[in-house]
């Protein structure tokens, strides 16, 4: 599965469009990570626990989008976008969406 965030797949020709595909996940951070991040907050810098958490959830959302595209018979998703919104305090939704297409 080829993913791009532009209107085409450079070097390939699009032969068929399947329309919008999307994948999302809502994640809450667990207490231990929150506590460690609270300590790290004093000195500032990267909060690795949160970075990993968000990367995992983005990978999950992307794989759901890819699964949807595969079901439609696509072999590429173009114009992929990511958005994040907080649903409740301590929980956020990660959405990824794009257009499923078939390329040569």
């Amino acid at each position, binding site marked *: 599965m*080829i*993913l*791009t*965030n*532009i*209107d085409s*797949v*450079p*070097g*390939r020709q699009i032969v068929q469009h399947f329309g919008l595909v999307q994948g999302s996940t809502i994640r*809450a*951070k667990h207490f231990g990570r*929150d506590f460690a*991040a*609270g300590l*790290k*907050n*004093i*000195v*500032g*810098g*990267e*909060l*690795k626990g*949160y*970075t990993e958490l*968000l*990367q995992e959830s*983005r990978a999950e959302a992307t794989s759901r989008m890819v699964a949807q595209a595969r079901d439609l018979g696509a072999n590429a998703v173009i114009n*992929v*976008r*990511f*958005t*994040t*919104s*907080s649903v409740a*305090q*301590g929980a*956020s939704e990660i959405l990824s969406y794009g257009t499923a297409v078939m390329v040569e």
Partner: protein
Amino acid sequence: MSTELLVSIGIPVLLIIVGKVLGSNIERRHYASIAAREARFGDQPAFSTKQSNTSRPVRSAKLATGSVVVSVDHFKRFVSGFRMIFGGEVRSYSSLIDRARREAVLRMKESQPNAHVYLNTRLETSTISSTSGNEGIGTIEVLAYGTAVHYDRAP
């Protein structure tokens, strides 16, 4: 009574001093690492446009992503509290955003290190809130993503 007062004022002051000393040290090291890695990717530019004006044949195009969560230290959080009274630019937070964006772009490049260009690079910023109230203030996540294009050979 006086020991109570000492504890209630002493602990926040101590945290601010610890934040200042360690925080600025962490920031300096982070900037040094950013500068070194940016130099390495000097000839692999990230564009915000969707096309690069070249007709070189493309070998592969893949999505590249990079993200980072960064927080400010206690000292800067304290200083910015004063800024909120008088208004104006909050300089202590500018470096936070700057570090996060540059780090995210670098991680995007490092996720596809052999690409020649990164097209349509997008930056997304979101704030992280804490479950236990407002202690998450000054914590942001930056995501950078783009299409990593690998050309066949030099033109």
